[in-house]
Each structure stands twice: as structure tokens, then as C-alpha cells.
């Protein structure tokens, strides 16, 4: 894998919709063979960025280069090199799964025997062989996602864009999709993935960009992002009652610890040395808090995300899972 060659190079990209700046001066580079993640909440500008990179939208300013092809003024110039899996399945409901795949392959000029062969194999890979001859419109949500991904890779693109591939599908299907994505990447496909699942980004991606309100606030490898908090000790307490008012007393009593409130019935403690959880529980109970659970946790990318963006990961997840939340 040539990880030093640029697959995608973007600089100072800007996109406005009337008075909304959807993408605001975004600069990044994705190396060939890399699995690059775009992590951000609703309306951060993830889809708008993908649209500009794939030829569905024109940037207002900035530069886009895909595999050394300058796409700034010719947004469709590199489309033969890319595959796109949009955030919503956009295949033809009246065609069967097999017909949809063959049609998508035909759009890339692939001949009939090869189309049928690849479509059959992909249906196998995605466990959809049994549904091959059923109309796409009758597929379940997870099946639709899988077929949409299959349609995005049937022409063996060098770069694959995946817009929130696992949103709204069950845990088992999501795990299977992540495995398929990892396998594709190992086989050499460069992958640009957007997600709002922090764990997904952490598990899959080589590098991650945090994007908030159209701006990239941080780009780095997962290891580098986590490194500053790796040595930290964290404990999480949850309560049966609200504990908002205890925080100040805790800070006074335990000056070596940092406290935060991830929720109204939760306290998070962070320190450079090991935390004496039992001592804290006794103190909290003396203060009238009903402790439900106390545990030490491994600091994760989530902590860094919250620290850098100020956005609670839980809130982002819930927002997304509301019906219509992810659009």
C-alpha cells in the first residue's frame, strides 16, 4: 500500500447555502490506502463535504484533488475512480437486488458477463443471495444498506465514500458491515467514512477529523488523539437522584481530582493517580446521594471528543437515533 500518495487533497474548502456556512475553510489530506474518518454531529457539514468530493456539489471556494486529478472546477472529473454510498439508500425500488447491482455496474461501463458475475459474488458476500430476486423496495433497512454498499463497490473503486454506513441498523448488521469495510480497506481501497459513532471511528479509522459547524477542529491518528489521556485514571458514578449541587463540595474536598457532570445523575472523576472509588462512594452517600453504580473506566476517544468539541457524545448519539434525526 502506498500510504504516502494522496488519494484526496482538499484545501480551504468553503460551501455556503444562503447565510449558512455548511463547510468553512476545511483542509485535509487522505493518503492512498488509508481509512479516514469524519466525525461530527448533525449538520456539521459531513454530507456537504462528501457531495463536493464526489461531484454532486460545487465548492464556493477552495481546491479539491482526487488521485492527482484537479476536480475544483470539474467536479465530475474523477468519478471513474470513486464509489459512493450515500446516507440514504438510493437504489431503484422497482428493480430486484440483482438487477440493481447489474445496473450500477453498467453505469461504469462493465460488460454483461462480468456484471452478473460480480453482482452474484457481492450478494453472497453480503448474505443477500436469498433476496437477490426480490424487489429492492421490499428489503428491510439493514438489507437496503448492505445492497447500497455492494452497489458502491461493484466497479471496484480506488476510493470509497461511505456516509454514515451503520446509522439505523441493528448491532449484528452493523458489526458485519464494519468487518466488510475493514476488509475492503485491507484489500487496498482508500476509505472516507463519516460517522457520529465515536466507537466506530475509533475501531475502524487510521485517522480521524473532528468536524463541528463546518470546521475541522482536530485531525490526528487515533493513537495520537488518545495519547494525552491514556495515562489518566477515570471513575464514573451514577445515581438514583440528581446530584448537580454536590460538585462544588467535591472539588473542595478532593482537590487532586477533576470532576465533571456528563448527565444530571452522573459524576465523572479524573486524576493522574489511581482514584480511591470506595472513599468517594462513602463521601457521596454521606452527602445524601444514592449511588447506583461506581466503576473505573478506560479513558477513550469519547473523552477527547467531548474535551475538544464540547459536545456530549451521548447527546449526539440520541439526536441521530431520533426518527428523522439522521435525515
Amino acid at each position, binding site marked *: 500500500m502506498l500510504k504516502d500518495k494522496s488519494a484526496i487533497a482538499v484545501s480551504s474548502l468553503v460551501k455556503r447555502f444562503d447565510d449558512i456556512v455548511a463547510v468553512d475553510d476545511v483542509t485535509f489530506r487522505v493518503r492512498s490506502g488509508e481509512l479516514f474518518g469524519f466525525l461530527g454531529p448533525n449538520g456539521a457539514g459531513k454530507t456537504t463535504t462528501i457531495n463536493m468530493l464526489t461531484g*454532486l456539489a*460545487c465548492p464556493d471556494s477552495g481546491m479539491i484533488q482526487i488521485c492527482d486529478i484537479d476536480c475544483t472546477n470539474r467536479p465530475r472529473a474523477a468519478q471513474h475512480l470513486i464509489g459512493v454510498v450515500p446516507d440514504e439508500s438510493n437504489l431503484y425500488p422497482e428493480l430486484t437486488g440483482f438487477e440493481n447491482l447489474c445496473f450500477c455496474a453498467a453505469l461504469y461501463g*462493465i460488460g454483461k458477463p462480468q456484471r452478473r458475475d460480480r453482482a452474484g459474488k457481492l450478494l453472497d458476500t453480503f448474505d443477500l443471495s436469498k433476496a437477490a430476486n426480490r424487489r429492492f423496495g421490499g428489503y428491510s433497512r439493514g438489507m437496503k444498506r448492505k445492497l447500497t454498499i455492494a452497489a458502491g463497490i461493484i466497479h471496484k473503486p480506488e476510493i470509497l465514500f461511505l456516509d454514515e454506513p451503520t446509522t439505523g441498523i441493528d448491532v449484528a448488521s452493523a458489526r458485519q458491515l464494519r468487518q466488510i469495510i475493514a476488509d475492503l480497506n485491507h484489500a487496498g481501497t482508500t476509505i472516507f467514512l463519516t460517522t457520529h459513532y465515536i466507537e466506530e471511528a475509533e475501531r475502524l479509522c487510521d485517522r480521524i477529523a473532528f468536524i463541528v459547524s463546518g470546521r475541522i477542529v482536530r485531525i490526528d491518528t487515533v493513537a495520537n488523539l488518545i495519547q494525552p489521556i491514556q495515562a489518566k485514571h477515570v471513575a464514573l458514578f451514577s445515581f438514583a437522584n440528581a446530584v448537580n449541587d454536590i460538585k462544588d463540595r467535591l472539588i473542595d474536598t478532593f482537590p487532586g481530582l477533576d470532576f465533571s457532570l456528563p448527565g444530571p445523575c452522573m459524576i465523572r472523576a479524573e486524576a493522574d493517580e489511581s482514584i480511591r472509588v470506595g472513599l468517594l462512594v462513602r463521601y457521596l452517600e454521606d452527602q445524601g446521594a444514592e449511588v447506583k453504580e461506581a466503576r473505573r473506566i478506560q479513558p477513550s476517544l469519547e473523552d477527547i471528543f467531548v474535551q475538544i468539541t464540547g459536545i456530549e457524545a451521548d447527546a449526539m448519539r440520541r439526536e441521530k437515533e431520533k426518527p428523522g434525526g439522521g435525515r
Partner: protein
Amino acid sequence: MRSWIAFWNILLKDMRTYYLKPPNISWGLVFPLAWTGMFFIKSGSGMGSIPTLLPGVVAVSILFGTTSMLSVTVTFEKKQRSFERLLLAPVPLELLMLAKTSGAILFGSANAFVPVAMAAFLIDLSGVAWETFVPAVFLIAVASTFLGLFIAVAVKEVFEAQTFSNFFRFPMIFLCGLFFPIENLPVFLKPFSYVLPLTYGADILHGAVHGHYAMPFTLSFSLLGIFCIGLFMLSLHNIKKRWII
């Protein structure tokens, strides 16, 4: 070569999923039949009026057949986002839109021959100049398909496309000399006739069926051709501007 595989498969898919579906075939048959029947009976002047009515009925069949299909194959697919798939394909936009419209052009041309077949049962059509009639039918189909494309690209909803098409279609029936000669129109309406492509198509059809051309038919053919190119370019421009935002 690769682009042509895409072209052919887009056409084939549209044929299978839209044009050859029973409701559309029956619409393609019933609609021209209804127009034909209505005018043949209403005119009340017997078989003798058929040659003067036939060109108008043919043109109306093409116009309605083509424009109503584009709102489905383009506006509907845009709305349900499958059109994005086509925009993501490495196929020149011109070829893509030709593929998307060629089904409607064929459908419109086929519609045109429903009233012709009916008339053939009733009168002798051996005097018709087919060598001008057939190309004219094709060009009218192209022009009205591209008019449909222009409308389909300009709107967001399917019902808007239908309403907007009627805004063009119904005046065209009266202004284009399909059923009454343009000379009989009030003076202030005549300029409108001459900016509508169907005027020139209808004139060629009239000439081909009963020999009365109002304009030299080479001029009509050229103008019809210019309308086709103009409408297509305008639609492409709008797609680039409005869809690749």
C-alpha cells in the same frame, strides 16, 4: 464504448420500468385514441375531414405522451434520489440526459402512430409523404421531450411538473395551427405561435398529409432542429446550475 454501455442500460431500464409497464402502454394507446375519436366525431364533416385533423391529433399525442413521462423519469427519480446515482456515474452529462430522454422520444414516436393506424382503417393514406411525415414525427418527439426535460429540471415535485407542462401544452394545442390555421388567429396571438416549436412540426405534418405547407418545409425542419438543440442545452445548463449545486 464504456459510456455507451451505460447509455444503453439506462434506456433499457427506463423502458422496462416505465414505458413498457401496462398502465403506460394503455395510456399511450388510449390517450391518442380518445383524441382521435373526439375530433373525428366532433368535426361532424365525415371522412373528408380526417386528413386535416390527423396532423393535429398526431402532434397532440406526441406532445402529451412525451412531456408526461419526463416528470416521472426525471423529476420523480430526482426526488427519490436515485437520479444521484446517474449523476455519480462517469458518463458525460450530455450522454446521460440523452439516455434519460431517448425512452420518451421512442414512446412519443410510437404514440404518434396510434391515430395514424386508426386513420388507415377509415381512409386511404397512400397519398401521405411518409419521407417527410416520419422524420417530422421524430423531430416533434425530440422537441417535446426536451420541452418536458426543461420543465422537469425546473421543478422539484412531480405535481409541479404536471401543472407546469399543462401551462405549455394546452395553449400549444390552440396556438400551433394543429386544428385551425394560424392565419385565423387574432393578430396579437400570432407572435406566440411562432415561438412555439410545435407550430413548425404541425406545418410539416399538414404538408405531408394533404399537401398544404404554410412555410417552406426545410425552414420548418431547421427551426424545429434549432428548438431541439436550444431546449436541450438550456436543460443541461439548468441541471449543472441547480442540481450540481
